């Protein structure tokens, strides 16, 4: 059911479809999809809004191997309805997470690409997000790492950002953004002086992959290729934290310390300067290699309790 897999080191994560990401991320030929498009489990609600459906409702779920180890994978398609959580879309993720509880794979990988809740199915989407967070907490407690990979065009917004914050570990690329309220939502509610959503550099500084990595909001920074995300996933699976009181106490301390230290900063560049980054203005244009060196010198980036 998957398109022919492309060279993972040449395939842009940002540009690839959910299906291409999964096929190229997994060991070649190892991906098996559950409820594939031929099952036609489409949204029962979108026709009411005169909107087209997708045969997979915008999420691909299945199993694969990664370096020979069994994993379960969910990949959101950010171009269909912004990758948003509808009833079927959410339920496919829930089913996968519940199966993982019994099957105990080496990891569950969630390839986020979502604007959050699909408004046309808002109540179902919101509830599914809560169900996903509960299921992830249970899985982590059972010792199954849940790894989030974020580098798609829709980012990980709204409830997607909350699910991401529930994962054991996160890898993010330059183009990946993690946030609750999106720039447009903040601007609509609070005005352009609070957040000018057309200022793309501001959006990337505030919510983008480099900022999240520098402040410890993500655990790995990946180049925008499927191969880089694969390498990051393998690395992160090996160092997933336990889900217990010690981890959450450490996360509490980490987040409180962040607010105490940076709570008066108006812009990400002020935070980066305070973190000890020599030339904060240069961060957005840094190559991955240069950025990795910068990260290595920033202590906060390695406070990784989550």
């Amino acid at each position: 059911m998957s398109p022919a897999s492309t060279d993972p080191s040449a395939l842009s994560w940002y540009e690839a479809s959910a299906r291409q990401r999964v096929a190229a991320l997994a060991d070649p030929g190892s991906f098996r999809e559950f409820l594939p498009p031929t099952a036609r489990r489409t949204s029962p609600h979108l026709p009411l809004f005169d909107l087209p459906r997708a045969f997979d409702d915008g999420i691909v779920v299945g199993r694969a191997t990664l370096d020979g180890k069994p994993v379960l994978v969910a990949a959101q398609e950010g171009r269909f309805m912004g990758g948003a959580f509808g009833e079927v879309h959410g339920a496919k993720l829930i089913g996968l997470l519940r199966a993982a509880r019994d099957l105990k794979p080496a990891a569950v990988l969630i390839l986020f690409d979502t604007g959050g809740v699909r408004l046309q199915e808002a109540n179902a989407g919101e509830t599914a997000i809560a169900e996903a967070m509960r299921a992830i907490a249970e899985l982590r407690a059972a010792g199954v790492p849940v790894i989030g990979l974020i580098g798609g065009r829709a980012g990980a917004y709204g409830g997607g950002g909350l699910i991401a914050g529930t994962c054991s570990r996160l890898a993010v690329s330059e183009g990946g953004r993690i946030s609750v309220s999106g720039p447009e939502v903040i601007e609509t509610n609070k005005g352009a002086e609070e957040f000018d959503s057309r200022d793309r550099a501001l959006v990337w500084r505030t919510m983008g992959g480099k900022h999240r990595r520098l402040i410890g909001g993500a655990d790995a920074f990946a180049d925008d290729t499927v191969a880089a995300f694969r390498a990051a996933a393998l690395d992160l699976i090996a160092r997933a934290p336990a889900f217990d009181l010690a981890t959450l106490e450490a996360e509490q301390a980490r987040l409180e310390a962040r607010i105490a230290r940076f709570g008066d900063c108006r812009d990400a560049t002020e935070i980066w300067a305070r973190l000890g980054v020599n030339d904060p203005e240069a961060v957005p244009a840094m190559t991955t290699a240069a950025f990795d060196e910068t990260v290595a010198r920033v202590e906060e980036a390695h406070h990784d309790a989550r």
Partner: protein
Amino acid sequence: MTLAEILASLFPQGHRVRVADGLVGGHGPLDGVEATVIGIDGDTALGIEGALALSRAVLDAVRAGDRAPILVLVDSDSQRMSRRDELLGLNECLAHLAKALLLADQAGHPTIGLIYGHSAAGAFIATALATRVLAALPGANPSVMDLPSVARVTKLPLDKLQEMAKSTPVFAPGLDNMVATGAVHAVLDPARPLSEQVRALIADAPADDVRDRLGAERGGRPVARAVAEAVADEARLEARRG
């Protein structure tokens, strides 16, 4: 009911629950143990500081190790919408609060949510929706987005949305629709003591997440349960094939 009335009905012997800056915190006696109370009052938006104050209280309860109930009382706005909150990782702070409640649940604390006013979006997910059992009082108004905003985003006329909302609980705001979706387990009776009703919720708390089953039974989420089961069945079948 107001928060003061709710607390009086929950703790007829008195309590030590305070509200500061819209954040609710404290303790009260329930069935011979000291229940922890956290919450949001007065339609307050939940930002990074608020989320961490609430999670601190939950983790303190877990560390105490007494498995006493944790009550989450909610009349909130959505998440606080600001550049500063997002800059400092609101997603991490809200997720952390939800995780604290989920950890408490795993550690044996009954976690009971009670929505008595508004709540929406990230604030709702991080608090009430992270409890094992979510109850509501009549007049509560959980929503993802109000209909005028839905009209703006979907570019559909408001009167058409209002008509659709009558027959399609999956997208419309309001308590009845969240009950139909299965997100809200039960609606309590304000005329009876809340202490008894919460005690019953704790006694009857389901062992698993039953929200999609409730959604199917109540018609608010007609297919979620079946889809999740179909995926899980295929996953188990594939695993047996090896």
